[in-house]
């Protein structure tokens, strides 16, 4: 028999006790390394465990993101939580269930096959035996490694998985204390920072007297090289100090950037690490070459809450509470930055506001820790200011995507090149991709890294979704990874998927027009993947695509389809828009195939959220630069989609059909942005190729048409 292939989380964390513990109050604690970031993963993991153990959901407690008791599952990213952590929890629970039944059968002197499990109790021929998980747990060796050999339930046997169970964390969030920001133990000290304007900048003077005067209260100033923090028992005092500080700080060696670097067009021609992925260069001259370029500027995570962390240093042990996406990695990165052994640090996850990728959360944890080490025995609550979050979070990189597509005699793609210019999509701390921000301000800053992007095996970064899902005989990617971006860039929901899907789907509309065919019919003529066809045809039917009107009327209907990372969930979207002075998205229909769905309403919520975020990016968002760096530092200068701009959204799922669960959190963003782009092109009769679709760009494109 072949050895079962374990998910990576189980390979790295094989011991059962890293995952599961039966507690005296007749609950079972399931630990996961993935954390709640508003996506509902804690509820979904609980559902998986409840079903596999036959324990009601209210007896399942989920511990998420704890370095002491839980598994290391890297970051909560890339729509992998259900695929990886969910399948790990399922295998662990199946194995523990088998072991528990084996113990119970021994005690009852019966066959394991005579026993069933109801509400965590073991029944023999339907009759309670007095045995349950909690009576036999002490006889199970939880230090054993999981083998993955115990059979899991078939999907048809699920009773909790597949149900729209309400989110377990929401009641607290509609009524009071819920976030790391809300933890304020007695004798807490509040802290704010003065940020180093850029790597290499040197603090040559700091007028502490003036800052203390502005703070209007008892204030401690913590300085370590170019890292400065203001600490006070009174939050407003620390805050006022930080607001005043930039006026009283003199920095040398500050790098200037040029405002035009904020545009994606600046990327072309910059020094880059170039590589080709896929087919070798075509040896025959093109017959009918079609080219198109789509761009997206730098965009922000723009979390509602500025980043926050608590840190406490007692007797040589540092305890950190953070809303970062991976507590074990945070612990390792903090250890390296602070010169502490990893065992001297505990990191625990507490909820924060939605992050949608790598924002300031980890950086705030180092800020808090640096202060805690200087003020041992005190609990430090560090929070970024609004302008600090906008100004210093790593932003989603600008991207320029040019497609070069040669057509065959039937007007179908014969040879396809996706050429991409982009700064890196991942500068997460550690693993040679990035640093915790404040390390650059310390005495021995880490050496600058040569940027790298996630590998193709991990779904790529700038190249994510650069391969069309359509039948293309020869496809290659030319990837220009820009070596020196003007600002720090890192993971933002979908990475390169949104610009790449926009480019691919825009081009397909153009090719359909050239062929004199309907965009849906044209796509279906080159789409073999039955699951992609199913969502595309389904969404077109829901949106009455066949009744689409002519182009250029000011009203437009556009469609798009993609499979996230070319291996996760499928999503097809139709957008209906009205374009006058601005673009208004009136309606969105989305149909997704995520295979086995743990919590249908949770998935719909994720689809809807991705749709709204993608519309916001497409229509409104761009990080602005000035000479100092990021200049869009508040919600007026970085507007996002508002209630009055929200379309009516219908997001549906097709049946799982026995397919395994596919990551769903990022699958709707690319198709939504692409569908909106195509709908705007249909409404105007001319395409806007640069995001965001501002009033100026609409006017320019109308002039182009005239």
């Amino acid at each position, binding site marked *: 028999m072949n050895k079962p292939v374990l998910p990576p989380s189980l390979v790295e964390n094989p011991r059962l006790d890293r995952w599961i513990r039966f507690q005296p109050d007749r609950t079972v604690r399931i630990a996961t390394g993935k954390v709640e970031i508003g996506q509902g993963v804690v509820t979904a993991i609980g559902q998986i465990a409840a079903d596999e153990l036959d324990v009601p959901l209210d007896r399942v407690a989920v511990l998420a993101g704890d370095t002491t008791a839980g598994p290391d599952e890297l970051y909560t990213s890339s729509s992998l939580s259900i695929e990886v952590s969910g399948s790990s929890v399922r295998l662990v629970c199946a194995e523990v269930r088998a072991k528990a039944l084996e113990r119970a059968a021994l005690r009852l002197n019966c066959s394991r096959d005579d026993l069933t499990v109801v509400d965590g109790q073991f029944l023999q021929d339907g009759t309670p035996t007095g045995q349950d998980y909690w009576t036999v747990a002490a006889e199970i060796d939880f230090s054993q490694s999981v083998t993955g050999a115990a059979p899991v339930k078939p999907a048809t046997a699920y009773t909790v998985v597949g149900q729209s169970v*309400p989110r377990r964390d929401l009641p607290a969030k509609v009524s009071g*204390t819920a*976030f790391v920001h809300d933890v*304020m133990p007695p004798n807490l000290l509040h802290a704010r920072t003065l940020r180093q304007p850029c790597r290499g900048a040197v603090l040559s003077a700091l007028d502490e007297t003036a800052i203390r005067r502005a703070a209007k209260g008892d204030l401690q100033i913590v300085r370590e090289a170019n890292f400065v923090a203001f600490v006070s028992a*009174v939050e407003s005092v620390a805050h006022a100090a930080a607001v005043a500080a930039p006026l009283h700080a003199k920095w040398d060696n500050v790098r200037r950037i040029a405002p035009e670097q904020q545009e994606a067009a600046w990327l072309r021609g910059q020094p880059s690490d170039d590589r080709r992925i896929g087919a070798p260069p075509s040896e025959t001259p093109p017959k009918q070459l079609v080219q198109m370029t789509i761009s997206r500027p730098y965009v922000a995570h723009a979390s509602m809450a500025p980043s926050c962390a608590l840190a406490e240093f007692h007797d040589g042990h540092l305890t950190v509470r953070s809303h970062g996406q991976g507590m074990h990695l945070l612990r390792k990165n903090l250890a390296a930055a602070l010169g502490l052994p990893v065992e001297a640090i505990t990191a625990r996850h507490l909820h924060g506001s939605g992050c*949608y990728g790598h924002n300031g959360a980890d950086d705030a944890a180092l800020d808090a820790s640096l202060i805690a080490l200087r003020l041992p025995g005190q609990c430090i609550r560090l929070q970024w200011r609004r302008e600090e979050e906008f100004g210093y979070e790593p932003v989603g990189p600008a991207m320029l995507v040019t497609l070069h597509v040669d057509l065959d005699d039937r007007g179908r793609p014969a040879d396809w090149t996706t050429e991409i210019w982009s700064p890196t999509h991942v500068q997460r701390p550690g693993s040679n991709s990035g640093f915790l921000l404040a390390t650059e301000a310390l005495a021995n800053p880490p050496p600058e890294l040569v940027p790298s992007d996630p590998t193709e095996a991990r779904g790529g970064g700038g190249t994510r979704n650069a391969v069309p899902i359509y039948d293309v005989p020869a496809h290659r990617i030319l990837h220009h990874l820009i070596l020196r971006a003007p600002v720090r860039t890192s993971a933002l929901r979908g990475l390169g998927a949104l610009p790449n899907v926009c480019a691919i789907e825009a081009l397909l509309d153009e090719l359909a027009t050239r062929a004199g065919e309907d965009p849906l019919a044209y796509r279906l003529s080159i789409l073999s993947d039955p699951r992609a066809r199913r969502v595309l045809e389904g969404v077109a039917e829901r949106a009455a695509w066949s009744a689409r009107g002519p182009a250029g009327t000011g009203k437009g209907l556009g469609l798009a389809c993609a499979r996230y990372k070319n291996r996760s969930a499928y999503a097809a979207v139709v957008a209906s828009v009205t374009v006058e002075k601005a673009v208004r998205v009136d309606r969105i229909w989305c149909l997704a195939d995520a295979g086995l769905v743990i919590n249908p309403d949770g998935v719909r919520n*994720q689809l809807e959220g991705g749709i709204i975020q993608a519309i916001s990016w497409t229509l409104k968002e761009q990080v602005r630069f000035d000479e100092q760096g990021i200049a869009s530092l508040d919600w007026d200068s970085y507007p996002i*989609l508002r*209630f*009055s701009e929200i379309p009516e959204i219908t997001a549906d799922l097709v049946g799982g059909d026995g397919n395994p669960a596919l990551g769903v959190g990022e699958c709707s963003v690319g198709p939504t942005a692409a569908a909106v782009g195509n709908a705007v092109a249909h409404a105007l009769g001319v395409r806007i190729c640069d995001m965001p679709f501002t009033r100026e760009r609409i006017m320019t494109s109308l002039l182009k048409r005239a």
Partner: protein
Amino acid sequence: MAIAFAVNGVARHIDVPETVSLLEVLRNHLGLMGTRYGCGLEQCGCCMVLVDDQPIHACTREVGSLAGCRITTVEGLGSPAKLHPLQQAFLDEQAGQCGYCLSGLLISAKALLDRTPDPTRAEIVAALDKHLCRCGAHQRILRAVERAAALLREAGPA
């Protein structure tokens, strides 16, 4: 100086400089964490509270201006054990993802339903438009306010 006002129906005397923000008083002095810091600029709505039944941004409101006022925070609507119909409706609709914006939205929705028990969708949108939600739960939030309005109308005048 000591400032006296009522928070969620309880008389409070707070001895802080009068320029301290209501947000800081609620969170750091009274332990009412449901009112949240988002921007400090009246741009996001996370800190919305009712002052004498009017929604205001607590982040910029100096506490010295509030002597004798009635203040309602999200904790004043209800608790997980005894939810207000608005909170219940938000849970029924699963109207939220990260949830950071929700307490401010609940407050503006409360102010709306207090004066307009049967609002149109457009009236709800107008009342909530000063709030931001980054996760994209808007459609669910709008449905939740409609659901709450129906629940409250069924329950009759309090």
